[in-house]
């Protein structure tokens, strides 16, 4: 075998091995999207009922609560960024990070100090490489987050919101995550969770649909209900964001791996062509060597006969 041909064969082999891996990852990601989507759907009843309840309290009572009232001069804002633990998902994490950077810039432009909270190893790596301070970070569950994970993330956030601004608390809470629009489209979005603005939540649509909300009796009191309701609301929002981000991550990974597989296929095809040409060249050369040798021999014998 010619040296050239051997080189091509080796490259084809290595590309096929890579293709097998990317194909497997694509299939795993595809099966996990469905699971993640199901989880999103399963968490929806709780989220929508909770939103309804929050809307009811927010519109039905005049209580001032730190979680609902807008501070006149917001000093500090918390930004929760949701990225993935693993790479190989195309631009998934970097798009979310970019969206968070843009939001940070906007908030800084409004004169607010920004405190970062990061979920996912990719985001943590980004921030630690640039030596940007991170208030808290969580890793290890972005594939399939549970409610307990969301609670773990939400607890310090709620605590930060409840703390006085002078003592390092935050006035606003934003969350940046990748919204799962469809199998093909996932867009990074930033949403303000707190203070609650009814026009930024889906609550408004629902309230509009229900027209007039009934006058609720609060048990034991509207403040106590708000106190208990708000943390749950943040938790459920964070949970929903984590689930959507997980679904988006799998979808992004599936797409990235699909194009990797396609590229590998393409590469194998062109390498095979090159290998065929090299083999053909080898054969042609061999034939011409034989023919040349034979004719030289024939010439030589013809010469000696004379």
């Amino acid at each position: 075998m010619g040296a050239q041909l051997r080189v091509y064969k080796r490259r084809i082999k290595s590309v096929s091995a890579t293709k097998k891996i990317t194909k497997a990852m694509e299939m795993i990601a595809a099966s996990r999207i469905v699971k993640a989507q199901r989880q999103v759907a399963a968490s929806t009843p709780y989220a929508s009922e909770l939103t309804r309840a929050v809307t009811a309290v927010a519109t039905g009572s005049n209580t001032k609560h730190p979680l609902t009232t807008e501070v006149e001069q917001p000093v500090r804002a918390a930004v929760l960024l949701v990225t993935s633990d693993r790479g190989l998902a195309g631009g998934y994490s970097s798009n979310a990070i970019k969206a968070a950077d843009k939001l940070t810039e906007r908030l800084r432009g409004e004169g607010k100090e920004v405190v970062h909270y990061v979920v996912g190893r990719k985001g943590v790596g980004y921030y630690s490489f640039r030596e940007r301070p991170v208030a808290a970070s969580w890793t290890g569950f972005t594939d399939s987050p549970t409610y307990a994970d969301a609670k773990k993330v939400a607890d310090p956030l709620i605590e930060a919101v409840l703390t006085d601004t002078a003592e390092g608390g935050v006035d606003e809470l934003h969350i940046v995550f990748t919204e799962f629009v469809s199998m093909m489209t996932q867009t990074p979005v930033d949403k303000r969770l707190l203070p609650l603005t009814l026009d930024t939540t889906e609550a408004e649509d629902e309230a509009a649909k229900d027209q007039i909300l009934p006058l609720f009796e609060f048990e034991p009191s509207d403040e106590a209900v708000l106190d208990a309701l708000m943390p749950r609301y943040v938790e459920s929002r964070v949970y929903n964001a984590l689930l959507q981000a997980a679904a988006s991550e799998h979808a992004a990974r599936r797409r990235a791996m699909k194009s990797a597989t396609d590229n590998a296929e393409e590469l194998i095809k062109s390498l095979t062509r090159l290998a065929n040409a090299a083999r053909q060249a080898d054969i042609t050369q061999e034939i011409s060597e034989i023919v040349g040798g034979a004719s030289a021999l024939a010439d030589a014998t013809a010469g000696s006969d004379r």
Partner: protein
Amino acid sequence: MAAELHVELVAADRSVWSGEATLVIARTTSGDIGVMPGHQPLLGVLESGPVTIRTADGGTVVAAVHGGFISFADDKLSLLAEMAELADEIDVTRAERALERAKAEADAAAERRADVRLRAAAVPG
């Protein structure tokens, strides 16, 4: 008169039970409360405790609910719980073990959770 109310019992990650009922008894922070059709719109904070639902066809559904809310309006009642388990889903031996462990570690919250589970499971369904 509509003598039934629609109940949705949802946990954070799933819908646990939904259907028509005639009476729902739940434990709020200020005591047990029974809700029948036509009740005044209500929003309350739930304690860890068993929730009893008398269904429209005369049966009884018991669930252990750990923290959450009860909200009632227009004959629609929703029970939102961080964790909720139907009585027949509860693994009694596991709950018993959890209760013993909680007692040993003096973990009041865990003890209460396990206790609620056991009591919910003990009610004949």
